[in-house]
């Protein structure tokens, strides 16, 4: 089916932001009826390409061609009119509008008087959700949706416009296996109807499963465009990183120490109920479950950013004041939240201020903070995590998605916690750095750190965890030891009877 006329062509495009050359002379075609993967390390320039295709950025040089005609998008409206639908890396919903309105925005069904047809709007949303297998009330506002649900609404939105060219920037980063499978089914059927798909992901199994062709980028430059069938995963990784990578999950065996965290009977009405588990020093405990099972809510309640109604949280035997992140930090806790844009980072502030935000008081001398102290503190951890950045004084919002995630990690690791809670720690992180993060967590655990990890990536859960606590609909469905935890047993517990 390949070698048909290219629906869209990226021709020798370049884009710089100040001194950062984000994309340098990249070209590749997108064919109808084909899914095309775009891979590269964090900051390689993938999202920048997406934004040029979406009309958000204008290429500095080079052109985009649709069916062999040059196009010059002056804004997202132009791209949309040209039949391009985009799922951005970061969800872009309207929090005050209902989910159905979010999906319909821009092409709402109209009645004869050009008024909006509300019932039809809702019916559309329902239909799309059914197709994606999502259970969401179309009339609820988008505010307060979990990051995964937001991502699903984004997907529904992109599908609703019935575009010829569908661009998806890490749509699966927040999803678990079940939703990914449903999404792929839908995308395949679109592809078979002749649409061109551009798909970005850091999960290679997804690429081999869905895509026919792959373009590899490194440091803003084009490395290769090949058929996926002609490459192994290792080939791709080698070309994208420029070197070989060692084993992915180097889990170290540790003898667990004293009990660090003891959660018992934790309940928040309508969200989770009767959650109990313990974590010892040196242990990595994973919270697994489907999207919306309530894992994030549990760890947020433990850390004190959310309230809870009953139950207790003890850290090293002493009960922790509820609803106070400051008390939790004083007790040695750290939480890497799941939504880096809303919860993890202050986008307008510089990288160094973000990294040092939780411990600014410790860095102060006589109550005064000097820029140098913050810079030095920030440098250590951003370097350890190989963050790709221009200057530490740049606003964190100018970093690529994966590098932003590294800044969040740096921020919390630099507080030298004794109990680290990570919520989707490697979301959007490239394969090389992911290995680095895992190695880091593992070695920190070996030094006696206790880790609670919420993750939707089953291989990560199975590879890293000493114990897996599976949540289902806000309750503990199973607690599995490392030996018992397999893909089947975790999925079985997560989905309840009748599945797996």
């Amino acid at each position, binding site marked *: 089916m390949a070698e048909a006329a290219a629906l869209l062509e990226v021709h020798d495009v370049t884009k710089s932001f100040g001194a950062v050359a984000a994309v340098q002379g990249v070209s590749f075609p997108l064919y109808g009826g084909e899914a095309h993967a775009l891979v590269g390390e964090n900051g390689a320039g993938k999202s920048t390409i997406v934004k040029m295709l979406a009309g958000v950025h204008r290429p500095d040089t080079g052109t985009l061609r649709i069916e062999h005609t040059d196009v010059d998008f002056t804004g997202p409206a132009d791209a949309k009119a040209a039949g391009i639908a985009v799922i951005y890396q970061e969800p872009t919903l309207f929090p005050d509008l209902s989910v159905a309105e979010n999906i319909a925005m821009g092409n709402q069904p109209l009645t004869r008087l050009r008024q909006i047809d509300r019932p039809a709007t809702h019916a559309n949303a329902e239909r799309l959700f059914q197709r994606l297998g999502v259970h969401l009330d179309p009339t609820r506002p988008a505010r307060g949706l979990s990051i995964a649900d937001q991502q699903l609404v984004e997907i529904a939105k992109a599908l609703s416009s019935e575009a010829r060219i569908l661009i998806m920037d890490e749509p699966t980063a927040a999803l678990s296996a079940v939703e990914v499978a449903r999404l792929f089914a839908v995308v395949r059927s679109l592809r078979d109807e002749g649409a061109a798909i551009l798909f970005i992901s850091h999960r290679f199994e997804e690429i081999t499963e869905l895509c026919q062709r792959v373009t590899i980028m490194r440091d803003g430059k084009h490395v290769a465009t090949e058929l996926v069938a002609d490459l192994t995963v290792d080939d791709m990784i080698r070309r994208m990183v420029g070197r070989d990578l060692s084993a992915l999950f180097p889990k170290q065996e540790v003898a667990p120490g004293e009990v660090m965290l003891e959660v018992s009977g934790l309940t928040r009405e309508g969200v989770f109920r009767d959650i109990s588990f313990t974590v010892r020093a040196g242990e990595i405990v994973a919270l697994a479950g489907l999207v919306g099972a309530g894992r994030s809510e549990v760890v947020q309640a433990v850390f004190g950013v959310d309230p809870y109604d009953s139950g207790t949280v003890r850290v090293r035997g002493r009960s922790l004041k509820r609803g106070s992140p400051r008390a939790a930090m004083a007790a040695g806790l750290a939480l890497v*939240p799941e939504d880096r844009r809303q919860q*993890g980072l*202050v986008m307008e502030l510089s990288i160094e201020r973000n990294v040092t935000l939780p411990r600014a008081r410790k860095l102060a001398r006589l*109550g005064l*903070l000097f820029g140098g102290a913050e810079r030095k503190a920030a440098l250590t951890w951003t370097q350890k995590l190989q963050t790709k950045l221009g200057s530490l004084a740049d606003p964190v919002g100018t970093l690529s998605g994966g590098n932003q995630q590294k800044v969040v990690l740096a*921020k919390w690791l630099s507080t030298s916690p004794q109990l680290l809670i990570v919520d989707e720690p490697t979301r959007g992180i490239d394969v090389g750095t992911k290995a680095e993060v895992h190695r880091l967590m593992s070695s920190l655990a070996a030094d006696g750190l206790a880790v609670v990890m919420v993750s939707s990536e089953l291989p990560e859960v199975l590879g890293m965890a000493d114990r897996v606590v599976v949540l289902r609909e806000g309750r503990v469905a199973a607690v599995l030891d490392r030996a018992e935890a397999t893909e089947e047993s975790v999925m079985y517990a997560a989905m309840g009877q009748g599945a797996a």
Partner: protein
Amino acid sequence: MSRKLASWDTAIILLTVLVLIIASLAVDNFGTSRNFTFMVLDLLPIILVALPMTFIIVTGEIDLSVASTLGLTSSLMGWFWNHGLSIETIIPLCIVIGAVAGAFNGFLITGLGLPSLAVTIGTLALYRGLALVVLGDSAVADFPFNYTGWVTGTLSWLPWLDGAVPNVLILIVVLALIFGVILHATPIGRSLYAIGANAQAAHFAGIRVARTKFWLYVVSGAVAGLVGVLWTLRYSSARADNGAGLELAVVAAVLLGGVSIFGGKGSLPGVLAGVVLLTALQNALRLEDVSGQALNIVTGALLVLSVLLPNVISSIRGNWQRRKLRQSAAS
């Protein structure tokens, strides 16, 4: 983005210096020490109220009730004075009352979660109304000369400066230094910017968002109370309508100084320059017999232009760079 901001601050500071130099050279009587004292006295209330207002706007909130708090403390000062309290008691009492008024704002905003714009529009009317209740239509004027004279006077222990340094300038400098250091060189300052730019992320970083905001309103009220006292002493007249409309002048000055109304951005030197610029310009134009109406137009235009020009320049520069890039790629 930070570079653009820096240029806004710097632009205002440079513009201020420029205006001061040109006015001293071109406007008769502008550069005299007496005129300097008049100017300092004119900008005293705006600059003092602008200090906590900057903090509040940096956290993304606003306090429109400051001028009314000022009026309330001014009224109360007159009332207390009529009831025989000593000035030494009245001054701290008024500051505390200002703080209580601020605390009430703070409670409504952080405790009940009401929007600050709405709350402080309400308390703007409420506090001004209470001021009227306290003093009604009367004015109290017989404050002791050693206090009223101090506010309008100049430093006497610096003879070689020949009365060029008004007493209140010391107060302005000390308070501006304290607020400046807190905003730019302490953990509290850092947390204010974080709260303004992303309150949720600040909460996740262990910053006590509500409590911090609450205290900002308390401080804002206390400073408004202090300014109420100074205002009363300067005009030796305690009245319920003192300082009416000051809130807009303060907000205008803070915005002129480069603070973003959406929070998270801005600097105190910029704000100080903004206040000085507005006051100096008005003073110079008045000396040149420019009418009050034209002053309005100049103030408004300055406010818009100060933000507009840096934006226009940076976008022109951006276009120019892009064109250069395209040309070099083509050749």
